[in-house]
Each structure stands twice: as structure tokens, then as C-alpha cells.
């Protein structure tokens, strides 16, 4: 089976073949994957080489958070066919528009720096919220125009709440 593996912003191919596991166009290598009961640690053995990989299964087929040598990889491993179908549907779905500002944790809104209709840049501070006794500035990840402001200073919000929508 040939997999296309999305790792953060990179994409690599891995083929699991009778002769071993082939990464990109390398030679196939003998591979083992083994678990420790009750632990998120997996041992990946490639030839004689051993790697300690910490695994967290995420929602969704082939999705994992993986840690290798202290680096975190948000990973989606799909077989080639499924990957192609996904890519096609993503391409035809068109752009999804600028990302809204979402509460990353429960907390209290201290200040909203924008009003409806304001033009914002990626990286600009939009909302200040307090959690764990510290003020945290939430920034826009994409540019856009403020479509709606859902909270005001003093609003208590849950994790995941929509704070400011952009368009």
C-alpha cells in the first residue's frame, strides 16, 4: 500500500511493500512498529535503527500527533487514492475565507481591539483575554475584514467560542 503522509506543511510518500517500507525513492527497509501497553510510546525500527515515537491518535482516519526527537508532527497518512480524492474535493470546494478568531481556552474577554468593518492584517492583535491570571493576546492568522464581533470586554467565554468573524 502506498501512503501519502502529510506532516505539518510537508507531504512525503511511504510505500508498505512485501520487501519492506519504502520512503520516497529510497530502497525498501525492514520495518517494525511496536507498542508498550498503557503508554503512548511506540518503537519504530527501520533496519537496525530504532526511533522512539510518541503517538496521540486524533479524530479522523490516518490522523495522529507524532513526536520525534522533541519535534511535533501533525500527521495525516492516507492511501494514495483517498489522498487524491480529498485533494480534488478540497480544490473544488474553493477558498474557505479568512480564519475567525476562536477562544483557544475558557476565559474572560479583557478587550476587543476591532469593530465591524475594520480591515485587519495577519498577525494583528484582535482580542485580549485573561486566563490563568495572565492576559493573552489573540491574533488574526489571516488578513480580512471584520464581519462580526461576538463578545465584549467582560464576557466569559468557553473554549472554542467564536469571538470575531472575518470575511
Amino acid at each position: 500500500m502506498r501512503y501519502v503522509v502529510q506532516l505539518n506543511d510537508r507531504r512525503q510518500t511511504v510505500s508498505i511493500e512485501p520487501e519492506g517500507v519504502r520512503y520516497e525513492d529510497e530502497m525498501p527497509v525492514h520495518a517494525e512498529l511496536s507498542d508498550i501497553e498503557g503508554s503512548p510510546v511506540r518503537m519504530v525500527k527501520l533496519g537496525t535503527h530504532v526511533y522512539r515515537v510518541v503517538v496521540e491518535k486524533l479524530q479522523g482516519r490516518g490522523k495522529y500527533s507524532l513526536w520525534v526527537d522533541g519535534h511535533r508532527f501533525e500527521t495525516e497518512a492516507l492511501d494514495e487514492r483517498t489522498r487524491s480524492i480529498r485533494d480534488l474535493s478540497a480544490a473544488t470546494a474553493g477558498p474557505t475565507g479568512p480564519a475567525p478568531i476562536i477562544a483557544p481556552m475558557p476565559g474572560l474577554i479583557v478587550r476587543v481591539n476591532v469593530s465591524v468593518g475594520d480591515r485587519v492584517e495577519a498577525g494583528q492583535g484582535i482580542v485580549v483575554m485573561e486566563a490563568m491570571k495572565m492576559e493573552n493576546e489573540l491574533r488574526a492568522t489571516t488578513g480580512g475584514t471584520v464581519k462580526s464581533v461576538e463578545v465584549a470586554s467582560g464576557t466569559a467565554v468557553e473554549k472554542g467560542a467564536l469571538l470575531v468573524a472575518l470575511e
Partner: protein
Amino acid sequence: MFKKVLIANRGEIALRVIRACQELGIKTVAVYSEADVRAPHVREADEAVLIGPPPSSESYLRGEKIIEAAKLTHAEAIHPGYGFLSEREWFARAVRDAGIVWIGPPAEAIAAMGSKTAARALAVANGVPVVPGTTEPLENAKEAENIAKKFGYPVLLKAAAGGGGKGMRMVSAPKELAGALEAARREATSAFADDAVYLEKFVAQPRHVEIQVLADSHGTVLSLGERECSVQRRHQKMIEESPSVAVTPELRRKMGETAVRVARAAGYANAGTCEFLLDQSGEFYFLEMNTRLQVEHPVTELVTGIDIVQWQLRIAAGEKLPFRQEEIVPHGWAIECRITSEDASNNFLPSTGRIRHLHLPSGPGVRWDGGVESGSEVGLYYDPMLAKLIVWGADREQAVTRMRRALVDLIIQGVETSRDFHIRVMDDDEFRRGAIDVQWLERRLASILERPPSEESVRVAAIAGALLAERDRGARAVSTAGVGAALPAGGGDVAPDPWTQAARIDGLRD
């Protein structure tokens, strides 16, 4: 020695004090909020008293409830830890008035040093160098602007009752001053119930170097040497070490003597810390004295061999310090990383949830002072520091490589943590050279966080992802026979193919 001590705190520092008491044969009383019913510090104590709802203003900051709990359980002394009520003069006084021993400096010394403005005035009166700044809290933005103009920008706003960067703001231009003052006041009120803020000249690229002081009630005041705490983000210390690469034995002696002079002037007893800025030319300026145990006390313990918390208890019980100043020399090198529930890759936003898995690092030279365990709930009510990972090495290089090894060993799942960030710092060339100052992390943070993984790590992650996906498809029995020399040649014993074997074991377990 005391028979029973109440610990007016939670988390790792409550456990740290409980362990010190256990090792001295002292019974312990924990206090806890409703959010901490199952917290480790409650379970590890001998007694525990519920003091209120989760918000600290309704529990850990309720001094009168804590004193009641001490009376109820017949505790003879109260250890405040750090944060919460540890530097509140009124609480130290109320404890004393209730006939209970306060494990900390006299209320008068807290009064003398607890406010930064008062501490500065006392330092100046005793010939200790300070950074130019106001000695009285700011009245309003107008006054602040006048003073800032005199010192020249940038200037620093600081909460008088502050600590840990809360209520602190750096201001580069006059137009930012009013807003920053307001924000600092708000944070100071929320964190310390005290909105007094003062202003000082901003020293360029200094190191934050502090001196640990230990004083008994028989007139002995000792310096336990310095800690370098320059690795800070938004004035929050992230990584501390002892000794400092920037401190020579001669400078250590001078700074130590200065700190002892400050402590004596304040009538100090018990453990305390004098914070200094050390500039690039080796000049140092007294900032403030923290009249309590510091988060980062373990690095000093590891290089001096002196258990500061046990000595806090002994001093409060009236014992004499048996050490001579000249005996106290740093031995080896210690580094501490604060493991917080913050997502470094996402602007260090706090993360909450249940810790599903915790694997502690171990082996030579590794110390874990933790406040959580597998199953712990990390909420929003309290400080995001989960634990401190501290290592000792014979020299700084050994300590740094050991810290990296221990950080990789550490696994925390269920909340985002600062672990990966700390690994990247240990890999950083400038950090490894010790070329740090208090603005270093802010300057370097982006390049630290963006440091790409090695191609080998990418390859392993890709293959691991594919193998996991393959297994999750149920293709458990696929055998990927070895290609190349995966097994040693020679020897007639043929082992079962390891992949098959692993798959079989998995099959049995599911």
C-alpha cells in the same frame, strides 16, 4: 522542631514542602479548594482542610480560613510557599498574632522589602546600587510621562506588590504610556489586590541575576550564591541556572555581600532572594528582594547541597545555621526548566484538560519537582506551572545535554506543554554558549520555535504515520521481511520475524 506544619499553598511547591517535612519527621496539614479535592498535595499530607471554592480569592488567598484550619488541626507553624499569601505582611502578622509560627521572614521585613518602592529606598539608604526609578507609586499617567521623559525611553512599569512579570510593562514611547499603566494596574489588582505601580529606567540587555540569602534568628546571614534567570518571556522566568556564566568568584563575593547587607538592613530572617540586573560591563543594580522561597530554589540546592526548604523549617524552629560563608561554593552546574501547560507554538496560550499520561524522566542528575500526575485535571484557576525539571551536571555543558536528554524522556499528554520549547532552547547555539540576557528569548523566540526538524525526523514521522495507518486498517499480519542486513549474519538461530511477532502480540492484546 515542629510536630505539625500547615502548608498554605498547592501544586508542586506544596508537595515540595510536604516532602521536606516528611524527611524531618514533621506531620503536615494541607489546605485545598474544591478544585483540588483530588490533588496530589492533599493526598500526600497527613491532614487536609477544605478552605473554599476554586477561585484563589475564595480559597488560597483567604488568610483567615487558613489560620482557622491551622487552629483546627493544631498546626504549630504555617509555610506559605511562593505566590498566594507568601509576601502579604498582614497575613504574616495575623499568623503571628494567632500564636502560630510563620515560616518566613518577620512581618516587619516583609513590610520593609515587600513593596519594591520601599525596598529601593532602603537599598539606596544602605549604599546599594539601584536602577534609576521612582520611589513612590505613580499617581497618574501624567506623572508617569514626566518621569519617563526625565529617564528617557524605554521605561518599565512595575507593580509594587508584583512578581513573575504580572503587572509589568515595557514602554518605548510616550503614546503607549497611559494604556500600559492602565493594563499594569489592572493586572496588579487582579493578581495582588494592590494597584500600586512604579516606573524605572530600562537597562539595555542586562542579565537577571539573583542571590539566594539564608538568615537565622541568631544573626547569621549567608549568601548561597547566584542564580541566572535571564531566559524570560514577558517577564516570566522560563529557565534558571546556577551558577551564572557571567559571574566570576570575585563578582559572586561582591553581589553576595551586597545581598547580605540588604537582608541585614531589613532585619531579615529565613530564606529570601535579592534580585539584580547585571549589565554587560559587570555592573549590578539591586531590583527588589523576594521575601519568600523562590520557584527556582532547587538549582541553588543542587550546587550548594543545602536543602533550602528544610532550612526554612529549621530556622523558623530556632535552629542556628551551621555553615560558614567561605564553605559555600557552587559545585557543578544546575539548570531548571519550568514545565507549564502553555502552548509555545501558539503564542504560549494556556492549555487546560486532564493529564492522560505522564512519564517522568529519570536517571543520573535528574530531579522532578512536580505537582501533577496521570489523571490530574489542569484548570484555569491557578498558575499554569505543572512541574519543574531540574538537572545537575559537573559543568554547564553536561547539565545542558542532560536536560535535553531528560526533556526528551518526559512525556505529558492531555494538555499542551512547554516541553518541546525547552528542547529547542537546549539545542540553541546562543543558549549553549550562555550568551543570554533578559531580552534574549524575546529576540530569539521566533527562530527557536521555527527551527525545522531534521530530515531524519521527518522520514521517521512519515514512516511511523504510514505504519500506524496501515495497522489501523486492520492489516495486522502483513510481514515486511527484512531487506539489507536487518539481522546479524552468522549464528544458526532464526528468530521469528519481529514484525510478525509484534503484530501477533498486538493481536493478543486487543
